[in-house]
């Protein structure tokens, strides 16, 4: 397997890599009791809502299969769909830009904004621009970006990082949000309470001013239709509609995998996406635009098509289905690991199960080597995925890639690889395997089990047993293995 020549997302720009391995970051997150309560409350609420509205759709499984098939077709034919999209957008007065990676995309957008003469932009919530670190790039060029999605605004004002694809401030509760507004939001009333309606009203007043005065907007896109050149954003708050219609210039940054072949394909995806993400039958706002229209809406439209490791992901036939993802975040909400650690532990803007398969592919597995192991393979993510990404199988495949990558860099196998090879060797010989099972009763295992039952004993146990006995005792050894009992019968 070789992925030579396929550029991955470059380091040092954007947010696809964490500063520490997942187990370490997770340990920090687990120590935060407030975070865990916030997450447990939020994910269990969304889980229940999603389950209820999905159960209403009789042909849900058929819809999933259709969505997977449509996305697979797109991924197999990007070479024709992308030029088709470019042609349609251009015909309708838009300008298409191709960005190899985050650095190039940031440069293109910065130049486009600079050319308008505006030093401020309003933003629709967008994963792609979070992925490439656009706000930071704009700031370095002296351009202020205002996030207009409520949760994204909370994250921005709190100088924080998003921790969920759909609900970026899921790790915050309303008291924390009030405190952030009071200290960071210009012109906020000092008597602000933590009543959700009052918080929303404060954000509304603050943002309204931005909508009415800012001439450039930046968005992502949920879908792009190759056949018509139409872009689409689905949202809940109406801030997107403001950004997409009021400014003079609209710049959309979109991953190349967001395409759909034809308008009718939306029939499938607009049934799947809102139910999977917010647990609603239909999202409140669906905005579509095709090029520019004289006298109506933005008069300048730029579409930046972003690769940033997507072609490299496409090159792995066992990993490419991750590009089907429509960013609904249903997998995050059902994941028992995500529920306990939150999103920051994953290091990337794409957390949870989908992040564990997507981030390492976008960056190359060496840079996110711990993520494919951040799962018990419980399968809850696959069950809810609206585009039927078999995340557990993909995680297992990426674990293999990580191990191979580690092996390629060293002459000696890692202790784990050596242990696995030894176990495999022992297990494939009947006499040595039987001997090994029988030797367990000769006291070694009994001693280990005894040690696991006292704090002093546990300190004597070597890895990997030491990581087992932190919270679990070892089982008492049996008098004899089953095979011996059977042989004696």
């Amino acid at each position: 397997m070789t992925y030579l020549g396929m550029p991955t997302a470059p380091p040092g720009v954007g947010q696809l890599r964490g500063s520490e391995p997942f187990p370490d970051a997770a340990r920090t997150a687990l120590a935060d009791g407030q975070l865990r309560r916030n997450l447990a409350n939020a994910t269990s609420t969304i889980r229940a809502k999603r389950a209820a509205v999905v159960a209403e759709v009789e042909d849900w499984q058929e819809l999933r299969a259709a969505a997977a098939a449509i996305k697979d077709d797109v991924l197999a034919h990007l070479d024709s769909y992308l030029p088709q999209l470019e042609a349609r957008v251009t015909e309708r007065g838009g300008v298409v830009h191709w960005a190899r990676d985050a650095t190039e995309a940031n440069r293109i957008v910065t130049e486009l904004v600079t050319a308008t003469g505006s030093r401020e932009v309003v933003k629709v919530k967008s994963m792609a621009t979070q992925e490439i670190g656009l706000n930071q790039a704009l700031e370095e060029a002296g351009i202020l970006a205002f996030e207009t999605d409520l949760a994204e605004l909370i994250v921005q004002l709190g100088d924080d990082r998003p921790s969920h694809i759909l609900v970026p401030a899921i790790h915050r509760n309303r008291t924390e949000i009030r405190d952030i507004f009071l200290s960071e939001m210009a012109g906020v009333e000092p008597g602000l309470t933590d009543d959700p309606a009052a918080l929303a009203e404060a954000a509304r007043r603050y943002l309204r001013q931005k909508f009415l005065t800012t001439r450039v907007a930046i968005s992502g896109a949920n879908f792009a239709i190759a056949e018509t050149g139409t872009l689409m954003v689905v949202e809940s708050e109406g801030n997107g509609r403001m950004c997409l219609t009021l400014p003079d210039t609209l710049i959309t940054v979109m991953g190349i995998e967001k395409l759909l072949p034809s308008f009718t394909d939306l029939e499938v995806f607009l049934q799947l996406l809102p139910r999977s993400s917010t647990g609603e039958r239909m999202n409140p706002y669906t905005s579509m635009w095709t090029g520019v229209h004289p006298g109506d809406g933005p008069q300048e439209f730029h579409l930046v098509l972003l690769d940033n490791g997507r072609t490299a992901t496409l090159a792995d036939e066992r990993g490419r289905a991750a590009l089907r993802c429509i960013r609904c975040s249903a997998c995050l909400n059902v994941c028992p690991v995500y529920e306990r650690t939150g999103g920051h532990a994953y290091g990337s803007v794409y957390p949870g199960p989908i992040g564990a398969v997507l981030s390492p592919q976008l960056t190359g597995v060496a840079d996110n080597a711990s993520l494919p192991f951040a799962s018990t393979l419980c399968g809850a993510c696959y069950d809810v995925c609206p585009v039927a990404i078999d995340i557990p199988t993909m995680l297992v495949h990426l674990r293999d890639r990580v191990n191979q990558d580690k092996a390629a860099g060293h002459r000696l196998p890692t202790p784990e690889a050596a242990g696995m090879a030894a176990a495999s060797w022992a297990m494939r010989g009947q006499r040595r395997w039987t001997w090994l099972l029988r030797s367990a009763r000769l006291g070694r295992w009994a001693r280990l089990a005894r040690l696991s039952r006292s704090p002093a004993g546990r300190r004597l146990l070597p890895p990997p047993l030491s990581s087992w006995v932190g919270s679990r005792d070892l089982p008492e050894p049996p008098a004899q293995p089953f095979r011996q009992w059977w042989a004696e019968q």
Partner: protein
Amino acid sequence: MKVALFATCLVDGLFPDVARATVRLLRRLGHEVVFPQQQSCCGQMHLNTGYPAQALPLIRRQVEVFGEYEAVVAPSGSCTGSIRHQHADTARRFGDERLAVAAESIAARTYELSEFLVDVTGVTDVGAYFPHRVTYHPTCHSLRLLRVGAKPLALLGAVEGIELVELPGAQSCCGFGGTFAMKNSAVSSAMLADKVAAVAETGASVCSAGDSSCLMHIGGGLSRLRVGARTLHLAQILASTRSEPVPV
């Protein structure tokens, strides 16, 4: 029916009572049970930790050892899941189509215990007697890989004297996940804490499941926290009778 028992490496080595209970149960139901002694491990640990090349010889061995049997029964949802969903795929990945076809053939004849009892033999009342308060953890791979659904609960529900209580949050993973329990011990322990608390909340004296690996994990937590409940595999409860009761 002639049934080959695939005990699984974990049960063979650490939980032989589970395999003995499986043998006792199957014999009581009139089946002839054989135990091919060349068996060892399905390779799930190697596969799921990302070492498919080390699993390949074990897949080959599984095919050689169990190739001739009409039915193979394993007291494990995850090992059955690995055989059914990973073996042929792994063989193909290494370009061994013959092995893949043989593995598919065996996978079609390999059953997790509750599948074998309910689907193959059409039995839910196995004539067991177990007068205790029991809660059941469905295990992720039985639930989502094999889709055994309510079969284990139907079997337990037919046991005479049993008091079956629902486990809160039953479908949530216990946090074991094979090598995950060690690589991500902090997260695994946090998940286990919730599972153990749920078991304690039921007031059951026994937490049962169809997989000894999950039970080893839950049991390790119950023991550490002195919850007072113990773990028993589904096979052990179903094997229990008035004349030969399983001690609790």
